[in-house]
């Protein structure tokens, strides 16, 4: 008798807990306003990442195609993964003196772990985070980027007045 009673009591409690769960899911089924899913590839036009979003490392260029990087190599030293290579060149300035300047700032996105040490350590604030996050490519070599744009020059320091 006791086991029969327990059998039916189990069924009742099982149905009751099932209904409790179904009430939760049913509540959201009937209130489509609470849908949180973002339709990603369709919402590309309106998708805006946060200001601090770590997409990739970029070098800031102003409207005259000038950047701040003087090729000191501190970012290369601070990078834990060897994702940055600085290639410098020597050029004669107006007075004929040989001055070291940046030729290529090579950035291997495939090795980058987004630890932010290069950006934090840069003494001339040449680097910052870019917002682009769609990094999928078919060829690995496309992940190696040159950060300074072709033909760009270093920003001259303004004389302190």
């Amino acid at each position, binding site marked *: 008798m006791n086991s029969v009673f327990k059998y039916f009591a189990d069924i009742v409690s099982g149905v009751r807990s099932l209904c409790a769960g179904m009430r939760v899911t049913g509540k959201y089924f009937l209130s489509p306003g609470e849908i949180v899913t973002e339709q990603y590839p369709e919402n590309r036009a309106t998708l805006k990442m946060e200001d*601090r979003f770590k997409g990739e490392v970029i070098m800031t260029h102003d409207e005259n195609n000038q950047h701040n990087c003087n090729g000191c190599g501190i970012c290369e030293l601070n990078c834990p993964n060897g994702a940055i290579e600085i290639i410098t060149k020597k050029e004669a300035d107006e007075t004929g003196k040989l001055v070291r300047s940046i030729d290529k700032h090579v950035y291997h996105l495939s090795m980058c*772990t987004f*630890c932010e040490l290069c950006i934090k350590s840069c003494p001339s604030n040449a680097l910052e*985070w870019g917002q682009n996050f769609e990094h999928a490519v078919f060829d690995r070599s496309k992940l190696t980027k040159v950060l300074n744009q072709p033909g760009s020059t270093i920003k001259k320091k303004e004389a302190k007045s």
Partner: protein
Amino acid sequence: MSKDVIKNIIVKDDEDYIINMGPQHPSTHGVLRLEVCLNGEIVKYVIPHIGYIHRGIEKMCEADTYKQIIHLTDRMDYLSAHMNNEAVCLAVENALQVEVPERVQYIRAILDELNRLASHQLWWSAFGMDLGALTTFFYGLRDREKILAIFEESFGSRLLHSFNTPGGLMHDVHPNFQKHILEFVKYFRKKLPDYKNLLTDNVIFHNRTKGVGVMSPETAIAFGVTGPSGRGSGFACDVRKVAPYGVYDQLDFKQVLYSEGDSFARYQVRMDEMEESLNLLEQLVAKMPSEGDFTAKMKPIIKLPEGEYYERVETARGELGVFIVSKGEKYPYRMRFRSPNFSNLFVLNTLSKGLKIADLVAISGSLDLVLPDIDR
């Protein structure tokens, strides 16, 4: 226990057979291979085989400066990335005897609790999924998304935010940080009853977890099982209470303890910890100084004085210890992590002996293992 010892205790019959669970089994949450000896459905022994995701983080640390080490620790227990960072930072700061600004300590504690919440939410989702309730996965991840949005706003990344640095933080937090946390606390308090109705009160879930994988406090201490898994057996091992770090000694919270020691007790510890974390977040946001530095003054190149340093923190899965041997250089001579998951994993054989193979999934789910932390 070595492989031979386990095999000697239980003599393998001719009828027994050995199957491999993993390394790609969905319920092992990573690349864990369990060598399971079965007699019919009954588990005779379980031998975990690890090392599939070994990256040599401890060795890599020996070639990195103390600032560079931080980003490697993220990748150990990726679900409590912030606590891993904090452990190394605390070890370096205590070795150098740097006084960290009060604001930084509060922000770190807030991030600890947020990260713990996010981790427990993901665990809740995945635990339900392991036991066949896929619904929980969507509900847990929906709420976790709110925390990740807070992370993304302040640190720019959602999971592996190397936000700590020895001496403080990388940046100041976003101006909306406190506001969004209070909004989240309010939101999540309303959602917790859903969690209760969906899984905690479910009869099928009770049958799958109650009395399954009972771990006595002696076993927990013998195997060094810490965190919510140990506290489910009544082992008071919360480092935040036992050896408070940061601002945890100034906060009012209780250590969640259950004495049953089964999978359901471990489940309840985590559910109660979520509520404790919400209370802590409210206290921390109220007490947090609104102005102040986000980092202490540190030298550009950090060199620890010669000696040995140990620091431990409570991650979402247990006690994480960081041991540094320094020879006075800018690189550590030896770096060693006492990861909570490693100890938690090896109790699996003791817990699942004599149970059904379906219970093994429930037990390994309730231990909340993260494999990259075990292999490092």
